[in-house]
């Protein structure tokens, strides 16, 4: 059974229809990528799934439970979370406080400590700077913090909205390594990327979004080899 299932999703901003009836699913243990050009509706889709935006119609189920219409904080309590577009770390809080906000749904102090140690091991930079106010971190460090913060809740499904945006090639590689690491630990991943090359390479399956519609889907390898994708997203 699919962990996340989206059926005939339609989302409007006022009278403008941003998502025009898309359906897709993410199975347990997969890495699934949505790729698409600017304005295709990737962020809108991600925010609709987590409940930050409410869809006009369509059904979203998580673990068989209908979640469309639920407020975001309740959906998060079900075990999914999102690294939002633009990171959106809490710039006035310290690195440590940001990470602890990520564990807001968790009550077990020992487990939180364990998660924190794990995140620090993965991102030594964050530990070095744990008492630094997050707004003063570099863009790359902020992305690490946003990912670490999301993982503090130990999600079953992690959604990432363009985690490689604005990062240097070296850091982009690091971000993809970390996504793979989370995946190997058993986290299901739904990824939104413009970096089609790298994201398709690590994806089990992928969907291509264009003007609010899914125009293509397949395994990561299939899409990497597809002529259309090469033309549109891989620069030839």
């Amino acid at each position, binding site marked *: 059974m699919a962990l996340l299932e989206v059926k005939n999703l339609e989302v409007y901003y006022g009278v403008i229809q941003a998502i025009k009836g898309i359906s897709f699913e993410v199975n347990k243990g997969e890495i699934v990528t949505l790729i698409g050009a600017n304005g295709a509706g990737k962020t809108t889709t991600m925010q609709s799934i987590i409940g930050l935006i409410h869809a006009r119609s369509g059904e979203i189920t998580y673990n068989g439970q209908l979640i469309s219409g639920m407020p975001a*904080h309740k959906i998060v309590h079900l075990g999914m979370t999102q690294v939002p577009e633009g990171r959106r770390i*809490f710039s*006035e809080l310290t690195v440590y406080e940001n990470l602890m906000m990520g564990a*807001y749904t968790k009550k077990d102090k020992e487990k939180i400590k364990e998660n924190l140690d794990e995140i620090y091991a993965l991102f030594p930079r964050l530990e070095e700077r744990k008492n630094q106010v997050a707004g003063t971190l570099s863009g790359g460090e902020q992305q690490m913090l946003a990912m670490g913060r999301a993982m503090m809740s130990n999600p079953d499904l992690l959604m990432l909205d363009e985690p490689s945006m604005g990062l240097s090639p070296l850091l982009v590689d690091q971000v993809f390594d970390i996504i793979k690491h989370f995946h190997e630990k058993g986290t299901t991943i739904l990824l939104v990327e413009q970096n089609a090359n790298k994201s398709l390479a690590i994806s089990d399956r992928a969907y291509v979004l264009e003007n609010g519609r899914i125009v293509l889907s397949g395994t990561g390898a299939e899409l990497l080899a597809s002529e259309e994708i090469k033309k549109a997203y891989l620069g030839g």
Partner: protein
Amino acid sequence: MNFITNLIGGLSLGGIYAMIALGYTMVYGIAKMLNFAHGDIIMVGGYTILVFTARSVHPIIAIILSVIFCVALGISVEKVAYKPLRGSSPLAVLITAIGVSYLLQSLAQMIFGSGTKMVQGLDLGSFSIGSLKIGVSTVVTLIACFMVMIALNLFVKYTRIGRAMVAVSEDKGAAQLMGINVNFIIMITFAIGSALAALAGTFYLMRSPSMYSTFGSLPGIKAFAAAVIGGIGSIPGAMLGGILLGVVEVFAGASVLGPYTDAIEFAILIVILLVKPTGFLGKKRREKV
């Protein structure tokens, strides 16, 4: 010697303004709205004390009841009047808040009449140190205000809900992604603001124990000015602004400038807004891409 009396009086009045200003600033920071009815919560608190002390309820109990009543009122106003407007234009919310303010004042006039009523039992007398004569209530106010402010800071800094308040004030959407129930946090904010308003109202009554339907307007508007001077949205800013205005008010009032006290206070507001539009501790939003 006069200087010390004035300083204590000013800090104490400043503490009152600061407590009210905290309500404005926290609601602004978290719900992103100007709650113009905040001053009228003070008035409702004052009348609650009047009602109970007139029936010989012990003043301490009357104060506790007033806090409880104001918290319930603050939460209800938010639920009924503001929550349905979440996400609509700030102007609509502002006008609603002004409407709530008039509603509360009119209700008070209907229930208690338009005259002034004296509140009994809040006069704690005074004591002397050498030639210095100080009101007990002034000292009590001073100590209580500072304790409340310290407690509030600890609450915001170290509790789960306090941290969630900071998160919501910075980014509602990101806060929801952490699993924070934003509506609940906004409710808590109104509850805290109303409790502080009730306490401030009590201390304000101790200074001059007469109740009328616009009792909360003047301290409300001054505390609002204090919140803006300190930087609206900033908790330390509200404290700083409140204490500054209180001290200025008492010292100006005791000098030859006495009749112009209010004008001086608002002139400070205007100057600060001209020189530093975000107030002393207000933050300019930095955008990072």
